[in-house]
Structures are given as structure tokens and as C-alpha cells.
């Protein structure tokens, strides 16, 4: 027990062997698992951070898109209103033109009708005068008063 001798070599050998074995069976696997766990935790945290960043980016994108959509809607409405205005003016112009044309053609017609009527009246009057004169000649009284009374008679009769 108290003797120091060559048996000291045994402990060198044994400890070195134990050290090598423990390095293979204890330290390396345990450290590997600890590192792996640390890495996986770090990865999870990083992923979460990335996801958060992505979400924030998406949110900003959507917000800006929403804003753009509003602006675009405004533009569309404005365009539509403008179009409608132009269309309206066009339609009104056309209607005015049409109305003018109709009025003009109506006036023309009225003129024609009147001329026709005048012609007819003239021939009618001539006819009446002719008949009155004829009647007066038949009576033998060609004074102005008798002709005018005949004229009145013919004029008041239907034919």
C-alpha cells in the first residue's frame, strides 16, 4: 500500500484508456447533443425572427397596396365620370342637332303646305268669282252690289 514501485505504470495506462473511452462514449456524444440542441433552439429562434420579419413586410406591402387600391378606385371613378360627361355632352349635342333638323324640316313642310293652300285658295277664289260672275250674268244684273252679294252667297255655300 505504501510501496511506490513499477505498478505506477498501470494507472498511467488505465487513466489514458479511460480518458479515450470516455471521450468516445461520454463527452463527444453529450457535447454533440448539447450543440445540436443549442443549434436547433437557435434555428427556431431565427426562424421565428424571420417569420416575424416576413409578416411585417407583408403587412407593409398590403397596407401600401390598400392605399394604392383606394387611389386607383378614385382614378377609375374620375375617369368614368369624365367619360360620362363627355358622353352626355355628345348626346345632348346630337339631340339638339336632331331637334333643329326636325324643326327645320317641319318649317319647310309648313311653308310648302301654306304655299299649297294658297294655290288652292287662289284657284278656289277664282272659281267662286267665276261662279258669282256667271250667276250675275244669268240674273242680268252686273252691278257691283249684286256681284258682291252673289260672291257672299257662293262663299257661304259649301261648294
Amino acid at each position, binding site marked *: 500500500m505504501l510501496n511506490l514501485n513499477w505498478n505506477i505504470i498501470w*494507472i498511467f495506462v488505465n487513466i489514458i484508456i479511460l480518458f479515450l473511452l470516455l*471521450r468516445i462514449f461520454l463527452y463527444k456524444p*453529450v457535447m454533440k447533443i448539447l450543440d445540436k440542441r443549442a443549434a436547433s433552439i437557435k434555428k427556431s429562434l431565427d426562424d421565428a425572427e424571420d417569420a416575424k420579419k416576413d409578416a411585417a413586410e407583408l403587412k407593409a406591402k398590403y397596407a401600401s397596396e390598400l392605399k394604392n387600391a383606394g387611389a386607383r378606385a378614385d382614378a377609375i371613378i374620375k375617369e368614368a365620370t369624365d367619360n360620362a360627361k363627355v358622353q352626355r355632352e355628345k348626346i345632348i349635342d346630337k339631340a339638339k342637332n336632331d331637334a333643329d333638323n326636325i324643326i327645320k324640316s317641319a318649317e319647310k313642310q309648313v311653308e310648302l303646305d301654306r304655299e299649297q293652300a294658297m294655290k288652292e285658295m287662289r284657284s278656289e277664289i277664282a272659281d267662286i268669282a267665276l261662279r258669282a260672275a256667271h250667276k250675275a250674268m244669268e240674273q242680268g244684273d252686273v252691278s257691283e252690289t249684286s256681284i258682291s252679294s252673289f260672291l257672299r252667297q257662293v262663299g257661304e255655300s259649301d261648294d
Partner: protein
Amino acid sequence: MEGIASEMYNLLNETKIAFTVPIFGGIPIPESVVVTWGIMAVVVLFCAIFVRGFDVMPGRLQTAIEMFVGWIYDFFTGILGEKGKRYIPYLGTVLIYIGCANIVGLFGLTPPTKDLNVTAGLAIMSIVLVEAAGIRAKGARGWLKSFKSPMPVMLPFNILELVIKPLSLCMRLFGNVLGAFVIMELIKAVVPLIVPLPFSFYFDIFDGLLQAYVFVFLTALYISEAMDTE
């Protein structure tokens, strides 16, 4: 009393031979070596069986083993710093070995640390590691120069330290285990029943683990001191 004294003297002087390997005219294997092999086998088998199934999601035993290894790493990193990380597995091995060796008495075996060859061997390995760490950290010239620091007058003392450090390591461990053994033998001789039990707990478990802790703690301290480039 005479009987106990002579019995103890005989015990101290003999190297218990467990068996003899029948080659080269017989190589005697001391008992301490056989017990050491037993400890090695149990520890390595334990690790091989339980560490193999380790997963990222730990079970209860895995958590305990991880905590223990993590504690070893934290403890020695605290003393040695990041650059001393390479020495941690060796120190952990010695810690586990001395711890097991000291409590093996509980199972009725003779602690290997009660063999002076074992503690001396461990101490010699420690001082070799300490000086190797010094050479590694400072280079051969720096290591040689460190012997005359802080002033050249200290040279003989620094050289003496090469012997004193391992000697104190060796003797502290051996003395504690031997002292515990002697006291336990005396107590058993006086009161063989029940009374030795609490003493056994103190000497075999508490003191045994404490000495393992002290041994590696001091070795780590010496390494850190040797690596210290001022």
C-alpha cells in the same frame, strides 16, 4: 492495541496482488489495478448504454447526465477559460475516476486510491499535463522563462514547485483515503456494529467526493496558472 498496530503496519507494507498473468515469468496485477478495471468497465458500459440513446428531447436520466457533463464543462471553463477547453475531458475523466474509486469502498472493495502508486501516478500525470499546457500556451522559451518569474531569485522555488505540486496532490489524496481507512479500521475494532455506519458515510462518500473535487480543482488551477501569459 499491539495487535492492531502490527496488523496495520503489515497492511501498509504489502501490495495486495490480485492475480498473476502467467507470461514473461508472471506479471503480478495489484488489486488496485483490478478494481480500477472494474470501475472503468462500469463507467464506460454505463456511458455506452445510456448515452447512445440520447435525443434532442431529453429523458430524465439524459437530463441528469447532461447536467453532470454540463456542470463539469462549466466548472472547468470557469477556472481555465475558453482556451483551456481542451483539457476538460481529461480533468472530467480524473474527477469521475477518483470519485468512483473513493466510494467503491461502499461496495466492500478496496479503494484504488489507497494504493500510493495510483495517487502518485495521477499526480505525475497532472504535473505533466500542467507543464505541457504551459509549454503549449507560452512556447518552450516562454515556459523556461516562466521559471524565473516574477524575479530570477524565485528560480529554485519554481523548480521545486515541479516536485511539490504533484507531491502535495498525491499525498493529500492518499493521506485522506488512508486516514479514513485507518480511522474506520479503528472504529470497527472498537465498535463493530452500527456506529461505523455514519462514519462510513462521511469518509467514503463525502470525503471521497470532496477529495476527487479538490484534486481536479487544484490541477485545473495549476493548468490555468501555467497557461497564464502575463
